[in-house]
């Protein structure tokens, strides 16, 4: 019963790292086209998904993010040629690390969003928010605060 109540009031906090050239433009398109997507996401614009240092992701969790979404250009479309591949490689290794640290792997997601994929972006945010809502609040921040 109590769980149900909590589930209702739990509003996931999601940090989204979006590359400037494709994904951010895609998100912008969703906005200008007045597509509705969940307000859970806080967008951080980066020049390229290859700029997303694993430290950014860990800091986001530390500051209380319940989920982290990274979006970059589709394969072969990265403005800097290789950035999204670098991101992909880091993403897989980072996942393995967070699993070892007890964080549910589904809290971290990487997707490719092009400049024209506004609708896909909106759908992705909604889906991801739903997934995080099912997982419930992340315990990382609390875990660090009660560290003694």
């Amino acid at each position, binding site marked *: 019963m109590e769980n149900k109540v909590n589930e209702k009031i739990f509003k996931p906090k999601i940090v989204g790292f979006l590359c400037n050239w494709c994904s951010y433009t895609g998100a912008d398109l969703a906005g200008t086209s007045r597509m509705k997507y969940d307000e859970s996401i806080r967008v951080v614009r980066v020049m390229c998904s290859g700029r997303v*240092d*694993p*430290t950014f992701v*860990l*800091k986001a*969790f*530390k500051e209380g993010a319940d989920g982290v979404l990274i979006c970059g250009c589709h*394969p072969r479309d990265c403005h800097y040629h290789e950035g999204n*591949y*670098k991101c*992909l*490689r*880091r993403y*897989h*290794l*980072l996942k*393995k*690390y967070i699993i*070892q*640290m*007890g*964080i549910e792997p589904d809290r971290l997601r990487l997707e490719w969003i092009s400049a024209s994929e506004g609708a896909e972006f909106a759908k992705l945010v909604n889906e991801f928010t739903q997934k995080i809502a099912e997982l419930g609040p992340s*315990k*990382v921040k609390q*875990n*660090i605060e009660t*560290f*003694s």
Partner: protein
Amino acid sequence: MKPKLNLAVYWGAACGGCCVSVLDVHEKLFTIVEHANLVFWPIALDTKYKDVEQMPDGFIDLTLYNGAVRNSENEHLAKLLRKKSKILVAYGSCAHMGGIPGLANLFNKEEIFKRVYFESESTINPDQVLPQPHYKVSEGELEIPEFYNDVRTLAQVVDVDYYLPGCPPQTERLVEVFLAIVNGEQLPPKGSVIGAKDKTQCDECKRKKSDNKLVKEFKRPWQIKDDGETCFLEQGVICCGPATRSGCGVRCVEGNAPCRGCYGPPPEVADPGAKMLSAIATMIDSNDPNEIQKAIDTVVDPVGTFYRYSIPFSILRRKLL
């Protein structure tokens, strides 16, 4: 003649190696005792805790605290020595970043006790006895320190003036730092890492490096025939040189073993493991998710490899409970 310094060396959750690294000053010990009174050093002297308690505040000029903070005794002494010392140095990887004992932050207290007191192959404990902080016997009450759930760095418990990294620190670095203090040299700003440099291990490493570090898989050191000359990374073996501060003289690589990161991150790197993880992942020679995953399967233990000395110091600090 200048008045002598009062010097203390203490071990918290330590292996003893740091204290031995102080003993390793060998004949320079005479230089040290010429300039300093050793007022507290459990490995070598029989000073009692109550003797330290009776010292006036700030009586000790320099304390080298090695070891992490794992139990109430470590914490008590950390706080006591902080009060009694003008300069408190976190000496060695354990005090600096949690070190090897910090790996225990992958478990909690219950899991550790279960393993150690019930399950370990060398344990016979039919009565399932566990350590009790307080225990009454006919002679009175016995007390042992309380074992905490988390391992912490020294700076997570008390205010620290300097960090002298290494597992253990290079003895030469200690002597340099000590003499600088004795000679009244201008000390670096509070909170600095001392006895180390600002570059990375790779900057000082003599192994041959090219621009091509791409690999399909990672190997354990025993899986390669090390040629003794080529950068370990280029031979597919993970070496933490790129994310590790120099100062040890690249002593592991000089001994043909990859660096494991005990000197901690170079300046401006918040999380040593994340930096290393990033460098290693970028080396994977594929753009295909399945192939990438295969390569990552060969990084057997990311936490133990990239955070071997630094879990408590890292952004996440411990495994989620």
